[in-house]
Each structure stands twice: as structure tokens, then as C-alpha cells.
């Protein structure tokens, strides 16, 4: 998801590789590339200028630490400056509280409210939702449907036009719940009536948290809007939504800098489970192409059992259909492949586009097909000739073409993994990565 930005950054970094003395021209060039990279990720222009100034002067003025080359030195400074921007991670406590959702129209407040309810419910809290969006038609239907799917009580009234009144009644009706999320109507800073409404809602609910929901694609407006929301109700956390698209979230990052808050969560998918806790360290690591092990681990910890991934088989250089079966099963629990791959520290290695095209429905089909293979075939796919293919297809209720497609996909995965191992001499070491991966389980 942050591919574009990290790719251009990596290009910029590459230019510094091998240099051991501070080279003014090289640093200037890097700063310029960095600027472009950040700008094309929608980071606020003023912020970019401040940032690049700081990076430039620090890179040139600070002494090169012993044993560090220029690239590492500058990389460290870039990293530190970026981390500083998103440093404050919003604390999320599992205790009775009220969360007020705020944001622009269409930023994904209602969807996120549903996801949050699910998140806290999974953590074992009694959650209730109030629908204070009295404007958008269908808003109550939407949130009540989402809540009903996960059995979370939802208070609202599609007929009532007064958000304050609904919220007041909702607080009473849901008084037995430990955690209440108030979903509000979308609004922007130039609508004084609506800004006043959210100020009133904030006073009424005495909300513990006021979270601003920001679309990852939001551009230069992000800072300004965040500033006004912050002035109105004091934003203490930002949730970035739609991170499963191609937007890089630089606008949201600027909003965080503007409100001096932190990023609480990241929304990255359409189902109610697609919500991740934000980890600033990991965010920047991923931004710089260093990989975000932590987020992967957290997610893997929830979904995976140790026997799910046979790291050893991969490392032995043997990758059979059986391994792929396990992998697909594991990945299915963890989410879309691309999301997982984005979290792996693959450096600037390019994976073939086709790897990502396997949709979750296809994964299910593949597993069914593999279910009708013999153990021998799973261990040695080369055995599969056309008559075996017929049999497999027949057994799985599939066509031979589908079986062929599966084998094609298998070969692609195999090649990809081979490529990874081959690249171990370069930026990252697959062996070490996998060791860490298995060690942390």
C-alpha cells in the first residue's frame, strides 16, 4: 500500500549507497527526491519543506558516526524525522469509555464504527453503538446491519432529526455497555452548524476519545480540516481508512502532525475484521522499505497456529503443493495476499503482479482442487499428467483448465520463492527473515 512512496524513497537512498563522506550534492539530491516522494504521497507541502530542511541540515551538520556510512547516516536521520511526525501512538485502553467519531463525508466513519465495535468486542468488552447520523439516508440501516452481524446493540432512529436528542437517549439506553461508540454524520470545517453540532455532541457525551477518521487518499486539505476539527473538539487520535487502495496516507500523516495526536487504527478492507492497530515504528519501517514485522506478527499471532506455516520446508528449498496448501490456508486467515506481502520486508524486490491476482474465492477453489489430489501428487506435482488431471478435476467438480491454472500458480509461487532465496546476498536475507518469523511464533 505504501509501495509508490517507498519505491521512490528507495531510489533516492540508492544514490547515496557507497559514499563514505558527506557529499553536499548527493545530500541535496536526496532531499529533493525525498521531497518529491513525500509530496506524491500527499504529505502537506509545508510539512515536507520543514522536514526536508531538517533532514538536510542534520545530514550536513552532524558528524558522521564512526562505522556508519553516509547512506546509513542519512537513512537514520530520515527515519528519525519521519518517526517524530507520527510518534505519539494513541493509547487504546480496554476500559469503560465513550468514543466520538468525526470526519469528512465519505471518509468511512460508519464502516469504521462497525469495525471498532467488532475490535473491542473481540477484546472481550461489552460494546454499544449510537447512530447520531440523522442526515444521510440509510445511515441507520447501514450501521444497524453492521452491528447486527456481530451482535452489538445499536441505538438509533431513522425518523428522528435531532442528533443530540438521539445521543442523549442512546446514552441512557446503552448504559449497561462498557464502551459506547457514537457514529456521527460526515461534515467539513466550512459548515458552522455541523461543527457546532459536534461540539455539542462532545459536551453531551463527555467523550473519552474523539477520533478523526481520514481517507488515505485525502490530499493537501487534510491538515487544514484536521486543524479545524481539532480546534472544535480536540482530536486525540486519527484513524486512516481505505489503506487497501493505492493511496499512501500522507494526508492523514499530516493531519496527525497537525493535531499532535497519533494514529489509532488503520482500516484496510471492506469486511468488519479489516482493522489494524497502528504501530508508528512499523509504519515508518514499511515506508522506508524495511518491512513491518511487528504488524505481521500481531496479525499472525491472532490467526495462526505454529503448524500452519512450515518454514523449514521453504528453507530447505523445497516447495510442494502441500506447502502451498498450508500457505493458502494460513493466508486465508490472515487476509489478502497483497496485504501480507506489504508487511514482509521484501526490500525493493518486485513480485510478479499475477501473484496478487489470486482472490480469496480462488484460493478456496484451489484448496478444493488440492483436496482431491493424492499425497504423492501433493509432494511431487510433476507426477500430474493429463489423466491424473482429469481425475483431479472430476473429483473436485472443476475443469482440467482450473487444475492447470492451479499448477501454473504453483509454479509462479515456486519461482518467486526461489528468487527470494537467490536475492539473499542483497538487501535482506531470507534465511534470517524466516528464522525470525518462526522464532517469534
Amino acid at each position, binding site marked *: 500500500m505504501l509501495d509508490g512512496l517507498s519505491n521512490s524513497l528507495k531510489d533516492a537512498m540508492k544514490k547515496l549507497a557507497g559514499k563514505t563522506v558527506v557529499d553536499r550534492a548527493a545530500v541535496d539530491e536526496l532531499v529533493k527526491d525525498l521531497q518529491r516522494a513525500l*509530496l506524491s504521497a*500527499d504529505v502537506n507541502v509545508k510539512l515536507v519543506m520543514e522536514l526536508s530542511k531538517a533532514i538536510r541540515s542534520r545530514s550536513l551538520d552532524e558528524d558522521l558516526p564512526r562505522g556508519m556510512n553516509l547512506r546509513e547516516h542519512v537513512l537514520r536521520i530520515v527515519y528519525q524525522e519521519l518517526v517524530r511526525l507520527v510518534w505519539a501512538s494513541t493509547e487504546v485502553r480496554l476500559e469503560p469509555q465513550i468514543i466520538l467519531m468525526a470526519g469528512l*463525508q465519505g471518509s468511512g466513519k*460508519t464502516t469504521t464504527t462497525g469495525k471498532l465495535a467488532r475490535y473491542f468486542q473481540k477484546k472481550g468488552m461489552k460494546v454499544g453503538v449510537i447512530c447520531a447520523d440523522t442526515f444521510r*439516508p440509510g445511515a441507520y440501516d447501514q450501521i444497524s446491519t453492521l452491528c447486527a452481524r456481530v451482535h452489538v446493540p445499536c441505538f438509533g432512529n431513522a425518523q428522528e432529526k435531532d442528533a443530540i436528542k438521539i445521543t442523549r437517549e442512546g446514552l441512557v439506553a446503552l448504559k449497561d455497555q462498557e464502551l459506547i461508540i457514537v457514529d456521527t454524520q460526515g461534515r*467539513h470545517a466550512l459548515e458552522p452548524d455541523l461543527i457546532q453540532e459536534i461540539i455539542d455532541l462532545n459536551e453531551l457525551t463527555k467523550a473519552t476519545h474523539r477520533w478523526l477518521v481520514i481517507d488515505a487518499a485525502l*490530499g*493537501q*486539505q487534510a491538515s487544514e480540516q484536521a486543524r479545524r476539527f481539532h480546534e472544535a473538539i480536540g482530536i486525540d487520535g486519527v484513524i486512516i481508512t481505505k489503506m*487497501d487502495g493505492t493511496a499512501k496516507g500522507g494526508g492523514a500523516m499530516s493531519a496527525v502532525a497537525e493535531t499532535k495526536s497519533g494514529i489509532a487504527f488503520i482500516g484496510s478492507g471492506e469486511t468488519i475484521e479489516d482493522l489494524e492497530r497502528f504501530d508508528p515504528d512499523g509504519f515508518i519501517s514499511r515506508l522506508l522499505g524495511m518491512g513491518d514485522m511487528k504488524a505481521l506478527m500481531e496479525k499472525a499471532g491472532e490467526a495462526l497456529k505454529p503448524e500452519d506455516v512450515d518454514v523449514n520446508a521453504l528453507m530447505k528449498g523445497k516447495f510442494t503443493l502441500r506447502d502451498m496448501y498450508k500457505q493458502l490456508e494460513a493466508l486465508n486467515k490472515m487476509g489478502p495476499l497483497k496485504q501480507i506481502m506489504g508487511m514482509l520486508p521484501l526490500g525493493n524486490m518486485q513480485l510478479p503482479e499475477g501473484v496478487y491476482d489470486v482472490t480469496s474465492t480462488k484460493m478456496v477453489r484451489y484448496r478444493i482442487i488440492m483436496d482431491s489430489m493424492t499425497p504423492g501428487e501433493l509432494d511431487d506435482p510433476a507426477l500430474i499428467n493429463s489423466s491424473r488431471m482429469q481425475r483431479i478435476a472430476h473429483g473436485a467438480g472443476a475443469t482440467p483448465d482450473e487444475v492447470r491454472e492451479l499448477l501454473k500458480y504453483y509454479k509462479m509461487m515456486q519461482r518467486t520463492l526461489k528468487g527470494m532465496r537467490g536475492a539473499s546476498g542483497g538487501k535482506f536475507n531470507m534465511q534470517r527473515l524466516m528464522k525470525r518469523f518462526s522464532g517469534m511464533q
Partner: protein
Amino acid sequence: MFGGLREKLQAARSRLGSSIQAVAAPPGAQGPEPSSPQPPLPAESPVTGEPGPDAKKPAGFVDKIKTFIIERELIVSEKDIDGALSDLEITLLECDVALPATDAIIGQVRKGLVGKHRKIGESVDSLVVNSLKTALAEVLGNGFDLTEYIRQHEKPVKILFTGVNGTGKTTTVAKIGYFLKNQGFSVVIGAGDTYRAGAIEQIGVHAERLGIKIIQHQEGADPSAVLFDTVQYASSHKIDVVLADTAGRFHNKANLMNQLEKIKRVMKPDLVVYVDEAVAGNDAVTRAFEFDKTVGADAVVLTKADMDSRGGAAISIAHTIGKPLMFLGVGQAYDDILPFEPAKVIDELLEGGI
């Protein structure tokens, strides 16, 4: 919505003007007034310089004038305007014009200015303005007159709305329905967003309020089927326009984009309208490109233009897919929709202050 961009462009323009002006000064030392930091009177300096030598020295008069003119006829070099251009670049970026589009516009302006012979008496400002105007006009192209289009085409005219999540497709469908109804067309809406919870209710309420017929199935139904039924209904009831709403989807989700292709195959729309928000940043370019590539786009609607946005997304999208901008969504009411007229917008952006 272009207020911010306009202000910034004015500033960039005077900066460009004055840097060209500054180069104009040295050759004829007596020419311009010593201090003219603001460039509102750019045209005057060369003109005021002229009468001087003209009156004093009759001998070799023609020669003098000749060299004078040749010296004064300036060639704008790249160096002269570099500073000003990088200012303009920042300006565009601050207004959410995506990086590739910014690069293209800067390139255009540079091409328009560098190597230009500036004649005596030709205003620096008009040179700059013309160059900017050409660059913007090139990017924005012509508008799209929906009413005219519908009049000229066989009924029912089928319009399919696409875009990523949360850009305001459903609201836009309602607004355009209202707009067309006021123009005297009969309209039917197809509730093609069968995925998002509450979406069918949302469009249903809009349709009811506007008194527009709506065709809807259950949540989770095949959107192609819903929209096919809508088209059938329109044909058999002699309805003028079909507005087909769809679920928001990201361009990098292959299966959802395939679904959209299927919808397109089944309902055979006359127009595919791509909806995006005016506040989107650089991603506007990526997704516009992908949508245009997969299902095509004949026109663009930009929503949320009332959010104090600088209108950069309009420029980015137009630059990327070269499709006309049809409407701007500027508020929450049904009549908060404006037909987009590029020539007017460009004039508005660059007029004033001359």
C-alpha cells in the same frame, strides 16, 4: 472551489512576470523605474524609455533606434524563470495537483516562455498569462453538456456511475436525477450498490424524496441483474434516462473490477461517469487511470468541491485520462451541483489583477 488556486496562481504569475521583468532591466539601463517590485505596470517601462533617445540625438537616429530595439527585444532564457517556475510548482502541489500533472503543466509553461522573443511594448504579464492559459486549457479540455448529449441520443440514455468507496456516487446519482428531472427528462435509478449495508435504503430514500422511480433488488443481489432490469424498465416505459448507481470499489481489487466489467457488458451504458472527490490528493491520478483502463470513462464528476478544496484533483484527473469534467458537487442539497465550464474557470482563475 477554485478560489484558493486562483489566489495562488495570481501570486505565481506576478512572480513569473517580475523575474522576466528583472532580466529586461539590464540592457537599457535607463529604462525602468529604479524600484518596481510589484509588476502591475510591466508594459510601461520599455515604452517610457523610448522617447528619450528619440528626441535628443537626430544623428544616426535610425541606427540608434535599431540597436535599441534589438537589445530590448529579449529572449527569455530558462535560467531567468527557474526560480519563479519552482514557486509555481509548489503552488500547484499545494493545491493538490498531483505530481505528474504538475510536472506536465510546468513543462508547458516553460516551453511557452523559454526562447520567446518579447517585443517592446508586449506586456510581460500577458506573456505569462497566455502561457498559463494555454497550459491549463490543454489540461482541462472542453466541458461536457449532459443535457445536449441526452437530447441528441436515442432514449433511454444509460449512464453508469463508477468510482472508489466514499466519493459520493449515490448522492451524485440523486443530484443528477434531480437536475435532469428539472430539465424535463424522465428518469429511472438502478440501485446497483447491493454490497454496502444501507446503500439500497439510502438511494431508495433519495428517489422517494425526488419522486423518481427506482429499481432495486435485495442486498447481496447481482448488480448486473438489477441494472439490466432497470434498463428493461426504462425501455418498456419510454423513460429518457437510466442512472445506474454502483458499489464503491478499489481499482486494485481484480474481482470487483471484473464485476464492473460485467455490469458494463450487461447494461451497455451510453456514458460511463467516473466520480471522484475534489479533496483527493495524488491517488486521484492512479485510480482515475485504472478505472479508465478497465471500464473506460466518458466524463468525470468531482464531488465535495465545497470543502475548501483547491481544485487540483480536477486538473490531475483531466490530465491523466483526458476526459471532460461534467459536474461539480458543491454541497449536501439536491441542487448543489454545477455544470463545469472549463473556459469560464480558466478565465476566472487568471483574470483580474491585470
